[in-house]
């Protein structure tokens, strides 16, 4: 049986919850959330540390608390949701196919869809780390789930590869649960995690951060017995003379996140090869009209408050589309191009002259400088920064006036220029 629903939200994590509420508040009452896990809240449920919500709620919350605030908002609006529900297919005419143990196969015919499936972690195989394949090699997120939700200790002597935030958080978490966290190795000359986490997770707990260092071999037949680490040269190639054996029973990997866009690819939504997410306009509409995306499925965020902010935009966009105010002109509009030191920009293009914000990341750590938005060579908007790092998302607000000028421009470039 096919059910007609105005807007289906795929994913009940922070992105999906915020999008659902925004869609509802914009006047669409027929919103439905589909969540694959047994609870709403997504990955926040296992992020039990504090540090969330300072921007959105103006107070510091833990992950589950942040999630609960949004779950309460969903409940308040009586927005229906289904948990234990996996969406397996979506179609360009906006049918959503999913399975649920109580309902069996469910098919929704929607007017608009919000993609909010989140991301997954890069794994050992993505990096082709050589060595044996014993038990004890885990993504940091898997270890986080085991510790925080299953009450299980993944190991006692831990080496962490990659200084992403989850890795840093897990370094402290495992240390606090009695593990010997020997080191965090980072192949780059800088950490990709937030500076505050370097302080409160590593320095506070005396865990060394080894920059320009990677794991070159994993040892142990059944369970990890140790890893070989090595310094890398400026091309990130390991230097053999610097090899060092570190005994351990666990290797955690925190080496990056990848947006989970298998559903999006299934209907050939245009993707941004840099973000790994769909290309979107300022309403977060993808190349398929009526399909919107927000949160980590769109691009990996550093903090959840930005996810909520972005998801409100997507939720509103999805509502407007339902109410026939949808912007069909997804192929038109003006492209925003990353220039000097800018790795990517979301949205990738603007289709209407409206005030909005551009979100972007720099490609390498930068000292003081200016973010400059130029249209056909003319500087339209700018912002100073004291420092910028790839691990942190930057924002540049655009006024209505600037947006109007952009719409008629041919070549729009955003760059981060370091002061000389």
């Amino acid at each position, binding site marked *: 049986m096919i059910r007609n629903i105005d807007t289906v939200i795929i994913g009940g994590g922070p992105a999906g919850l915020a999008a659902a509420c925004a869609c509802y508040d914009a006047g669409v009452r027929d919103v439905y959330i589909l969540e694959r896990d047994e*609870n709403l809240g997504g990955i926040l449920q296992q992020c*039990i540390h*504090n*540090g969330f919500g300072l921007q959105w709620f103006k107070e510091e919350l833990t992950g589950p608390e942040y999630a609960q605030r949004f779950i309460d908002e969903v409940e308040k609006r009586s927005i229906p949701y289904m948990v234990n529900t996996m969406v397996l297919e979506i179609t360009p005419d906006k049918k959503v196919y999913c399975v649920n143990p109580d309902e069996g196969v469910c098919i929704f015919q929607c007017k608009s869809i919000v993609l909010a499936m989140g991301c997954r972690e890069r794994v050992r195989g993505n990096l082709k780390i050589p060595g044996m394949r014993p038990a004890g090699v885990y993504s940091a997120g898997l270890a986080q789930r085991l510790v925080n939700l*299953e*009450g299980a200790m993944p190991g006692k002597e831990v080496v962490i590869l990659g200084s992403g935030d989850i890795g840093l958080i897990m370094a402290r978490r495992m240390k606090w649960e009695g593990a010997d966290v020997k080191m965090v190795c980072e192949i780059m000359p800088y950490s990709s995690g937030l500076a505050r986490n*370097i*302080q409160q997770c590593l320095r*506070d707990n005396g865990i060394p951060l080894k920059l320009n260092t990677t794991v070159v071999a994993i040892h142990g037949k059944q369970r990890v017995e140790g890893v070989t680490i090595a310094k890398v040269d400026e091309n990130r190639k390991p230097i053999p003379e610097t090899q060092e054996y570190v005994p351990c029973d666990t290797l955690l990997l925190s080496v990056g996140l990848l947006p989970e866009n298998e559903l999006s690819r299934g209907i050939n939504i245009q993707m941004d090869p840099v973000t790994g997410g769909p290309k979107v306009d300022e309403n977060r509409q993808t190349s398929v009209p009526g399909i919107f995306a927000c949160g980590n499925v769109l691009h990996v965020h550093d903090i959840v408050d930005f996810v909520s902010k972005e998801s409100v935009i997507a939720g509103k966009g999805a509502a407007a589309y339902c109410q026939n105010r949808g912007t069909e002109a997804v192929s038109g509009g003006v492209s925003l191009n990353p220039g000097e030191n800018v790795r990517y920009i979301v949205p990738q293009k603007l289709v209407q002259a409206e005030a909005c914000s551009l979100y972007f990341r720099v490609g390498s750590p930068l000292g003081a400088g200016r973010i400059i938005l130029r249209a056909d060579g003319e500087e339209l908007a700018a912002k100073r920064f004291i420092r910028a790092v790839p691990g942190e998302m930057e924002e540049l607000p655009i006024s209505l006036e600037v947006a109007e000028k952009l719409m008629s421009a041919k070549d729009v470039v955003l760059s981060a220029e370091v002061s000389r």
Partner: protein
Amino acid sequence: MELICILCPRGCHLQAELRDGQVVVSGNSCPRGERYGQEELTHPVRTVTSSVYVANGKGKMLSVKTNRPVAKESIPMVLEALADLQVAAPIRVGDVILGDVAGTGADIVATRNVPIV
């Protein structure tokens, strides 16, 4: 002394120095940063988060935190107090699980709703 402010994701790099019995902080972008710098040099504090086993609830674990930051040196005592803790569902966010943990004056509170199963 070089510090990284941990109060928000911005992570400002602070300089904090003791001058004539006063802590002078620079590099902060907000007043909270100044206060952090002063505290960090005189009596550093941290919020502790952890999880404890929960009986007859939906899920095996309850996530908890100290309802206010505790002295950094008391963290091991707080963790030790949590190690023995087992709680019973139902629990709601904000419920006090353990009052005045390890004599810090802070309470351990639940950060998740755990309904009974």
